[in-house]
């Protein structure tokens, strides 16, 4: 049951409507409480919160569309950001291709473990995330680092038309992701595998290769998000992405992409990302602690997972 068309089935529509209504309700609430929420300065804040998140979420969406899970997105983001800040003084802007290469390489390993060695995807990526975290810890030694290279920072903070350049990066990646999902054979294969892997393989889809490619893409986008994150913030330590996992996952699910795979896609993820990151920004604005935010996102994650799972088509869920 591979649905990739945008309007399809009442199940998807219900989830979409709920997300849209929730987003509008939340944004309105925050705007009423603090009128500067949607002011030009506020909009810039929201854009800063949203853009790198959107890029990472698009990568995760591709994997979830396939019915798998990538736990290492946040760790790769952290690693890429740290690689940039640690080595930019030594090799200048070459850190960017280096970071992207490393992250894609880890994505390749994830895909290999999953597709070739039959390790369940969440376990493979969970284990790899431990390795990546260990590597990041070893490289950074726990210290805080800052970037002074103006060119690198210009990647994210150059203002074009009143909004920082990272916004256009996020928008561009999002559009490209939609294109890949709907207009390329690779995208259709992702949906096919998500719908029914055995049927897809019988139809001639190279399941192993597509899976590896999907994880490589997820790794690449996580790395890109990390690079742009570092360019945006200009510094960081091992603490980057400390509370990012649950919101990231919640935003993909809140958008309407089902965990069972075969439905949803990057076009839906934008909605989820807006819902989550703007809620996050709003809650921080109201000085609600990280702890309450965590509870809220966990609830959203569970709630939206429940709503988006099509109970009739999925027979066995572990």
């Amino acid at each position, binding site marked *: 049951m591979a649905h990739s068309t945008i309007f399809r089935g009442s199940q998807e529509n219900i989830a979409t409507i709920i997300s849209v209504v929730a987003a509008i309700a939340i944004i309105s609430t925050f705007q009423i409480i603090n009128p500067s929420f949607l002011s030009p300065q506020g909009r810039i804040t929201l854009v800063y919160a949203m853009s790198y998140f959107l890029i990472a979420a698009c990568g995760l969406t591709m994997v979830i569309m396939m019915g798998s899970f990538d736990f290492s997105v946040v760790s790769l983001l952290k690693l890429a950001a740290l690689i940039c800040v640690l080595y930019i003084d030594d090799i200048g802007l070459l850190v960017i291709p280096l970071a992207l290469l490393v992250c894609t390489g880890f994505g390749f390993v994830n895909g290999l473990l999953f597709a070739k060695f*039959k390790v*369940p995807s969440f376990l493979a990526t969970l284990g790899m995330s431990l390795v*990546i975290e260990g590597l990041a810890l070893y490289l950074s030694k726990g210290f805080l680092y800052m970037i002074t290279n103006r060119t690198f920072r210009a990647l994210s903070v150059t203002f074009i038309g009143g909004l920082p350049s990272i916004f256009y990066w996020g928008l561009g990646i999002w559009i490209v992701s939609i294109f890949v999902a709907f207009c390329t054979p690779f995208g259709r294969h992702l949906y096919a595998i998500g719908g029914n892997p055995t049927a897809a393989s019988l139809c001639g889809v190279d399941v192993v290769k597509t899976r590896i490619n999907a994880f490589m893409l997820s790794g690449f986008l996580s790395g890109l998000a990390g690079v742009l994150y570092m360019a945006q913030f200009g510094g960081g330590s091992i603490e980057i992405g400390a509370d990012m996992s649950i919101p990231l996952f919640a935003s993909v699910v809140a958008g309407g992409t089902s965990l*069972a795979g075969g439905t949803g896609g990057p076009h839906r993820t934008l909605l989820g990302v807006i819902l989550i990151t703007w809620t996050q920004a709003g809650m921080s604005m109201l000085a609600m602690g990280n702890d309450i935010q965590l*509870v809220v996102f966990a609830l959203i994650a569970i709630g939206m*997972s429940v709503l988006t799972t099509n109970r009739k088509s999925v027979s066995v869920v572990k």
Partner: protein
Amino acid sequence: MNNSKKKHKTLLTVTRTIWNYPPLLMTIVLFIVFSILFPDRFLTPINFSSILGQFVTLILFALGPSMVVTTGSLDLSYIGVWMLGGILVWRFTPLLGMAAILVIPLLGLVTGILVGIIQVKAKVPSFILTLSVSAGYAGLTSVLSGGYPRVVRGYEFLTAKLIPYVPTALLWTIPLIVVAVFIMRSTKVGAYFYAIGSNEEGARLAGIDVDRYKILAFTMSGLLTGIGSIIQFQHLGGSVPLTLNMNTLIQPLTAIVFGGTLLTGGSGGPDRTIIGALAFAVLYRGLYISLINPEILQLLIGLVLVLSIVIASRGLKGVTIT
């Protein structure tokens, strides 16, 4: 005639047991390796009691989930139950006195029932569900604690020293382990768990009420974790941390995998997890003693987890993995 037959049978069982548990061999090998490498630091009574202490921590968290794993699902809610339970104990001690500690098993039971129902009825993948539950509970813990770690006194009798160098918590843990292993290996419930894990559709077609038994698995896991958390609470100092530590989350999972329980279900269980926990404790303490960089330690543990999963997943031809 009967007597000699019985003796023969016992010998067979013992031999078969040793042959069936390769992780036991691994534990012994690791032990020997570390003893040779670092005799002065590894072979001390303090080190042994540290190993046992870590074993207790691991097994108390891993016992419940290892039952759920045999059905093919995952239960990561133990961290959340422990943390939230600990803070609730602090909250309820003024009201209920010493009986406040019973809040933790209650929380575990309720969580288990909820998770089971949501997993079965809403078909949410258990990994995500229980992880989100743990995250949510961790957040609640921080909210309820007001931001400071809270210590609850009065339960020290649970871990008062009895046998030198053996953590008393271990003595409390043994009944729990016995109960868990008994349920899994000697009751109908356990047999059904294995059936569901091996082939859920087949079990359903054979007439097993899969939904009911899956909910039961989660409930038992929650209850067991809850009871274990009572001991765990005092074993770890009478207080709980306020943030979700991924390492603490992963280690019991590693112990389960080490023991040889396939994460897709159908085999293994608490009896294997005991050995897995022991193996992991020995490995961890050995690496710790070797005074390598803590960063490399974390890297190594991650690598070890990945490797052991790969090895364990070798026998999964034909199973659809997501």
